[in-house]
């Protein structure tokens, strides 16, 4: 079934890096794209705060329409070895990356259920499946997103709603410049990925042709986790 008219594609963290490329690509695909950022974007919210998410979704619905595509891309890193990681470093990263995805999904499902159509794409990470020392918080959050993805997929499959995840590897953004060089040696493709390559995968998962792809994790990592 094709996407209903009048729906919005909401991209969290859509102002820069991978999110910006996703927003641009979905716009080219014909979706009305709305970006959500902590301080930038079309609407502002702290995705880790359920009340803030509730208010942002109300604004989106009023100004643009119901959210029928949700890309959970908002993320943050606060790296450090677990033995020295402060509880607030742990909590902040779990809040933004994992709890944020849940709060947004929970709210978006209202609109998607009413429409009997929805596409959710969670931007996880290669570290969800291939641990990286210094990223206990980020890795746990991103791994949690994969389980969240599969659960939502099973719960909503009958309602025309799909939920899939993408695990980007080393992608050229300002969030990875400090680690890209070090990680590059392990990438079989021998190069860093481009944000547009992640956006292309999102575009596929939101397309009519991907209606039967549900609960999947799609690696966009140049073979890093293979």
């Amino acid at each position, binding site marked *: 079934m094709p996407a209903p008219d009048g729906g919005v594609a909401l991209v969290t963290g859509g102002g820069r890096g991978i999110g910006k490329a996703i927003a641009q690509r979905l716009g080219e695909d014909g979706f009305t794209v709305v970006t959500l950022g902590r301080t930038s974007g079309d609407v502002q919210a702290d995705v880790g705060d359920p009340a803030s998410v509730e208010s942002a979704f109300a604004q989106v619905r009023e100004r643009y329409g119901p959210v029928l595509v949700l890309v959970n891309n908002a993320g943050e890193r606060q790296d450090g070895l677990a033995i020295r990681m402060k509880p607030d470093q742990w909590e902040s990263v779990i809040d933004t990356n994992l709890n944020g995805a849940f709060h947004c999904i929970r709210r978006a499902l*209202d609109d998607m259920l009413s429409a009997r159509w929805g596409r959710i794409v969670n931007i996880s990470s290669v570290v969800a499946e291939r641990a990286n020392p210094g990223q206990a918080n980020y890795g746990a959050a991103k791994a949690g997103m994969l389980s969240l993805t599969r659960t939502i997929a099973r*719960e*909503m499959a*009958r*309602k025309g709603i799909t939920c899939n995840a993408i695990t980007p590897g080393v992608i050229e953004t300002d969030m990875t410049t400090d680690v890209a060089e070090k990680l590059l040696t392990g990438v079989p493709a021998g190069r860093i990925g481009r944000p547009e390559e992640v956006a292309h995968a999102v575009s596929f998962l939101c397309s009519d042709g991907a209606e039967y792809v549900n609960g999947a994790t799609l690696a966009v990592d140049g073979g890093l986790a293979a």
Partner: protein
Amino acid sequence: MAIQEADVLDEIRDQLEAIKVPGAREATPDNTWTDLDVDSLDLVELVKALEDRFEITISDDDLKPIESVGDAISLTMRLVEAEGAPA
């Protein structure tokens, strides 16, 4: 004006039809969710529709003992009476 049992039954039938339950239009108060093959997610949608239509709030505790169309009608009418009925 108090709502009638038939109003609630109509709303339930409409919602069951929207969620593609076979025989939705013929559903009666005696039908259980098992009879109608209504699962927990269907029930969430039904509850949301009843909350929106009759301006009530149905808590998880209220929902637990609800096993049939008739139970849902009784609960809705009780909550409407308690919370103040829409016209």
